[in-house]
């Protein structure tokens, strides 16, 4: 493919817009290039770039180059980081699974601590929890439930396959883990608030902290 020689003035407009740090109005380009009429050059450039990976576009009377919208996905590369759910998020997920549908206030009542909004967001981002409507009580709180992805991820046919309280007790999962933890949960004079989550995190064992770190790769 042989390109026709391009008019030097068109080339100058092209270079000016390429190097510009801001979109430019016709007047600005013209001022830059000795007051010449730049409209025909802009029209020609616009036509030329229409077929290319970069477009010359006018937005609000200002011209600039931008990458073609159909290629936008190429300019973003996704990288997946494996991240372990925090203890708080795991607890909230478990409560949703055992009690669904539940409102945030109910989750908080069961957990005994306030739940940061971010925790539910993480679970929804993970695709395990969804908004399942509103409860028809005063205030109409949003209620949450698990998703089919949740069942798939944990290898469950249905929520009924989650072990019941008796089974948990038999497995030793309802034994006090250690006194400190119980005391943390019952610490008197604790003021509930959004920063609760942080306070709790601090009291959590170090292992979890390690797990929090992103394992890249």
């Amino acid at each position, binding site marked *: 493919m042989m390109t026709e020689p391009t008019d030097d003035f068109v080339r100058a407009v092209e270079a000016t817009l*390429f190097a510009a740090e801001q979109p430019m109005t016709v007047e600005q380009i013209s001022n830059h290039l000795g007051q010449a009429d730049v409209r025909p050059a802009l029209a020609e450039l616009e036509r030329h770039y229409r077929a290319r990976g970069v477009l010359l576009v006018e937005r609000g009377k200002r011209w600039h180059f931008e990458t073609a919208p159909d290629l936008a996905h190429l300019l*973003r590369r996704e990288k997946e980081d494996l991240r372990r759910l925090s203890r708080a998020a795991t607890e909230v997920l478990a409560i949703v699974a055992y009690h669904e549908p539940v409102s945030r206030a109910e989750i908080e009542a069961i957990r005994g601590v306030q739940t940061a909004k971010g925790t539910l967001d993480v679970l929804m981002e993970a695709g*395990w929890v969804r908004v399942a409507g509103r409860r028809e009580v005063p205030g109409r709180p949003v209620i949450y439930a698990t998703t089919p992805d949740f069942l798939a991820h944990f290898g469950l046919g249905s929520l009924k396959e989650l072990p019941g309280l008796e089974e948990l007790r038999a497995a030793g999962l309802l034994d006090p*883990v250690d006194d400190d933890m119980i005391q943390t949960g019952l610490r008197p004079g604790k003021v509930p608030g959004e920063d609760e989550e942080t306070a709790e995190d601090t009291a959590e064992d170090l292992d979890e902290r390690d797990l929090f770190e992103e394992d890249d790769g």
Partner: protein
Amino acid sequence: MNAPAELPFGLPGADAGWDGEDRAEARKEALYLEIDGWEGPLDLLLDLARRQKVDLRRISILELVAAYLDYIEQAEALRLELAADYLVMAAWLAYLKSALLLPKDEQADPSPEELALRLQLRLQRLGAMREAAARLMGRNRLGRDVFLRGAPEGLRVERKSAWQCSWYDLVRAYGDVKVRSQPVVHMVRERMVMTLDSAIARVSSMLGVSLDWMDLRDFLPPASDTWANPQLRRSALASSFVAALELARTGRAEIAQEQTFGPLRLKACK
């Protein structure tokens, strides 16, 4: 921008500026006034050599030496601490000059011709680099003559989290929540005590056996095994005292105490 690129290397007058600046004129004026403007003796020599208006390969070393020594002589205002290098060079050049003028057979090794050649080569090398620098600076430079895209969108690497959680983590977490939220019942720990009933039974049976006054403490069980526990003994003492009062009230025992905090004695009623 001047274009030194057309000038062949080593030609006189090719002393273009650096970074677009040509100071040759200023330096000619300064030549006989100061020495600060030179980048060392070799720089001065190069400039003097260029004044011969011939290719650096064809300069007359004798003429160059003369010009240099002349310059040093005239630069009366020399600041000695700055001029040491220049004076060392002057001494060396004076030596070179005299050696070049000596008859051949008296010449040392390396020969003065060899030394002169080396000097010439060094001047050529420095001259070449100076011109190369000027040509480099005169090129179309990024950010001055040519430009990158002013507002690149940037290439982004988006990080997406793939959350991990195992079945065990989930169930364990629920267990933890349940444990933590269990209602807490406060229970007073059971302590070993001698009950009042058993104290009354013990004291009254022992009173029936003895006819004399007995110290209250003698009614306690012997301090062995579990009764060795001091807390339990205090409990037994307290209970036995209450038992004694009860027996006295019901007329089955007499109590006597000779002084305050003295031993409490007990005897069965007749």
